[in-house]
């Protein structure tokens, strides 16, 4: 149950959120009345290869953050030998500032389930899991009910969908850690290769896609890949859900065509004023200073999970980077040294900068560590953790330098005053 949730969605190009207001998430008939499940019927009349080909041609890429071409991934799983294959829906939406999957699960769970049914047919999976984060337990009942209604209507004849709940771990949004968690283990990342389409859950070929990615599948099947590929940019097709939060008048989920400008989203739609910087893509996302708001939102530029956090000019960038690093340090699974120890040292260095105890050489330590973590961490967490550090150093280096010189001055004064 959500309290005080006002619907502030003002999407500029509604595909996923199209007719969302007219659909009752507790009643499958309201979804069917809007043409729901016609895409599944269409897909089942095609060969699995043709369905995969259609999705491949649409240019749909993963919406969870990594952006891997969806159809290519399916093809790999489809061609992997073996009769047992799994489909996993990643509903472990833990990326800071991201709440779009929650929105789909809350308002239109049927679109996700229809997308899952089509995907399972394409890759030849008879069993699917939805990995739902523990923080979203209040969505569990509604989702289960939606699954039951799909079963009763006969839409899941060849597919068993099981919900598996997380237990509180950001890293489980990372695909290999998530699979470990479904297997009942600690949610630690796995070394790759092998990649999930070859050997994933229970060492079987597995396709793991984000909620939003799967929800894109029905409209693609219904209206065709050409229609979908006409939207967006060269390498970023379709629309994207953006989650705007922070210093804005109207936080919420906005759906825009990929390639739209960041300024249009944060200023025109969400009503941000006096912007200092924006972080796009979540805790490890890129920092865009106010002078670069014309930046477009796409896989070629910046995107990530679609989290867009806005900071006004009164905010302290070092404090923000420190808090972000604290989060990453806490959520690092601890398996590989560069991430476990690297985030620890970064918290220490950033912490002393925040509290006015910086020393000369701190910037260099951060830079050197960043390079090491980027190339030697096991998974995306450690590899991308340095991004906010490096970006803030790129655009706000003066703040760091000033903080260090102030720290040195403060210490000298203390020494003089005894």
């Amino acid at each position, binding site marked *: 149950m*959500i309290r005080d949730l006002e619907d502030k969605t003002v999407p500029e190009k509604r595909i996923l959120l199209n007719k969302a207001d007219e659909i009752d998430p507790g009643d499958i008939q309201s979804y069917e009345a809007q043409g729901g499940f016609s895409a599944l019927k269409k897909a089942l009349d095609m060969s699995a290869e043709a369905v995969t080909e259609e999705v491949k041609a649409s240019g749909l890429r993963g919406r969870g953050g990594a952006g891997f071409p969806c159809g290519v991934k399916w093809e790999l799983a489809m061609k992997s030998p073996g009769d047992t294959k799994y489909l996993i829906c990643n509903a472990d939406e*833990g990326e800071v500032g991201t709440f779009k*999957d929650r929105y789909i699960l809350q308002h239109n769970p049927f679109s996700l389930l229809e997308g899952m049914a089509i995907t399972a047919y394409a890759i030849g999976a008879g069993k699917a899991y939805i990995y739902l984060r523990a*923080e979203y337990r209040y969505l569990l009942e509604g989702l289960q009910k939606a699954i039951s209604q799909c079963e009763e209507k006969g839409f899941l004849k060849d597919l068993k969908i099981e919900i598996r709940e997380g237990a509180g771990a950001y890293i489980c949004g990372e695909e290999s850690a998530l699979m470990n968690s479904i297997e009942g283990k*600690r949610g630690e990342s796995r070394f790759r290769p092998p990649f999930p389409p070859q050997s994933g859950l229970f060492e079987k070929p597995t396709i793991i896609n984000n909620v939003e990615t799967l929800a894109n599948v029905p409209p693609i099947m219904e209206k065709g890949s050409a229609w979908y590929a006409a939207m967006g940019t060269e390498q970023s097709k379709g629309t994207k859900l953006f989650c705007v*939060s922070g210093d804005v008048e109207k936080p919420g989920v906005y759906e825009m065509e990929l390639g739209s400008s960041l300024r249009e989203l944060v200023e025109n739609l969400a009503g941000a004023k006096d912007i200092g910087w924006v972080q796009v893509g979540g805790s490890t996302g890129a920092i865009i200073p106010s002078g670069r708001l014309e930046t477009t939102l796409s896989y070629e530029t910046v995107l990530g999970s679609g989290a867009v956090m806005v900071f006004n000019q009164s905010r302290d960038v070092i404090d923000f980077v420190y808090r972000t690093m604290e989060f990453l340090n806490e959520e690092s699974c601890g398996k590989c040294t560069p991430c476990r120890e690297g985030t620890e040292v970064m918290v220490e260095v950033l912490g002393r900068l925040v509290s006015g105890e910086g020393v000369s050489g701190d910037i260099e330590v951060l830079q050197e560590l960043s390079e090491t973590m980027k190339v030697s961490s096991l998974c995306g967490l450690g590899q991308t953790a340095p991004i906010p550090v490096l970006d803030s150093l790129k655009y706000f280096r003066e703040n760091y330098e000033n903080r260090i010189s102030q720290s040195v001055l403060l210490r000298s004064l203390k020494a003089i005053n005894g």
Partner: protein
Amino acid sequence: MERNELLGVIKEEQEKNGYVSEGAMADVAEGFGVTVGEVYGVTTFYSFLSTKPLGRHVIRICKSVPCFLQNGEGLAASIEKEIGIGPGETTADGRFTFEQTNCIGACDQAPAMLLDDVVYGNLTPGKIKEILQSCD
């Protein structure tokens, strides 16, 4: 029982007794034919599982950046004031456990918290007081 059910069984234990005791971990280990260390390893990996008894109600206030920007810290302070304990602690009467948590995906209603399984958003000190007072 199959190995992949281990996490689910630990979660059930947590829900039934409010925490996962050493005895429970030993029993689960025996049931699955794995070491106690393995069960402990899984239990302590996840932040929603606890090896110490929790209160009847668990408050998890979000401390991530979007909530921080909307005075999340001030609200954490008002919870402390209201129930007299700090983060990581449980009240003596076993009514509340107070925790600070990472992003709960309610950034559009920041500052937000989870009280047991329910999300409360757009919090103010007054609202927090009211919500906590309504708990048994």
